């Protein structure tokens, strides 16, 4: 199966580890390309390219202040990724709740 283009949706856009690193930096607040370059072992063109992919799927937005382009995370666009994992989590939580109930029962049996 051919891989989908990186700009198809948020899932593909964040499938690359450098882009997740960039998002992690931006989750700390707005930053310019230079700020991101300073924190990652990537060149400025590489960071700009990754930001372009993230912007294409609206996961990152940009505003211009004077001559500076400032990038920030658009959390709403990451929602599908979040929901995807949370549903799996809810499933495991149900299962481990039952394990938790069993552990309580076993401990009560022990003390009787």
């Amino acid at each position, binding site marked *: 199966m051919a891989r989908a283009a990186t700009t198809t949706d948020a899932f593909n856009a964040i499938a690359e580890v450098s882009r997740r690193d960039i998002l992690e930096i931006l989750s700390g607040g707005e930053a310019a390309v230079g700020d991101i370059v300073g924190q990652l072992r990537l060149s400025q063109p590489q960071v700009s390219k990754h930001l372009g992919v993230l912007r294409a799927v609206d996961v990152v937005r940009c505003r211009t202040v004077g001559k500076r382009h400032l990038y920030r995370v658009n959390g709403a666009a990451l929602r599908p990724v979040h929901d*995807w994992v949370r*549903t*799996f*989590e809810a499933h*495991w*939580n149900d299962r481990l709740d*039952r394990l938790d109930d069993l*552990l309580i029962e*076993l401990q009560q049996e022990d003390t009787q």
Partner: protein
Amino acid sequence: MTTTRARHGSAVVTLPSDREILITRVFDAPAALVFKAWTTPELVRRWWGWESSPLVVCDIDLRPGGAWRYVTRDADGTELGWRGTYLEIEAPHRLVSTEVFEGHPEGEAQSTLTLTERDGTTSFSVTVLHASKENRDGHVASGMERGLQHSLDRVEDLLAELRGEPARTDVGGVR
């Protein structure tokens, strides 16, 4: 169920790398008991499956190289199976095994259970390491489908209640 006891925590799922799933939780019980509940067939049967989709097979040969196999059967008779081999056993703190959903035999993963006890509570973590990101994503997606089905069943139950019919019990099941 109307249990009101406050639980010690809820499960947290994260994706620490492209190929991993990490599930963590805290239990108000010693590690030895959690390990026992995780590895004793009679006990696993009490929490791993669902009321309408219970475990009908729960084989555990707890030794390095030993096999395990779980099979659930729902009300329609549909059976789903998971199997694997135990690789490392260090009771009650660590258990490494392979695991694969029999419906997707090429998607074998390695699962590491870690239990760390402190002051009578146990930090639980399971790391599932897949051979590829595609397999990892497929695993999470299968949980999502099941989870959605589960939620839809809840809605059905609620609607049935509102109509004054007896509620169905719950279904679903994915490792």
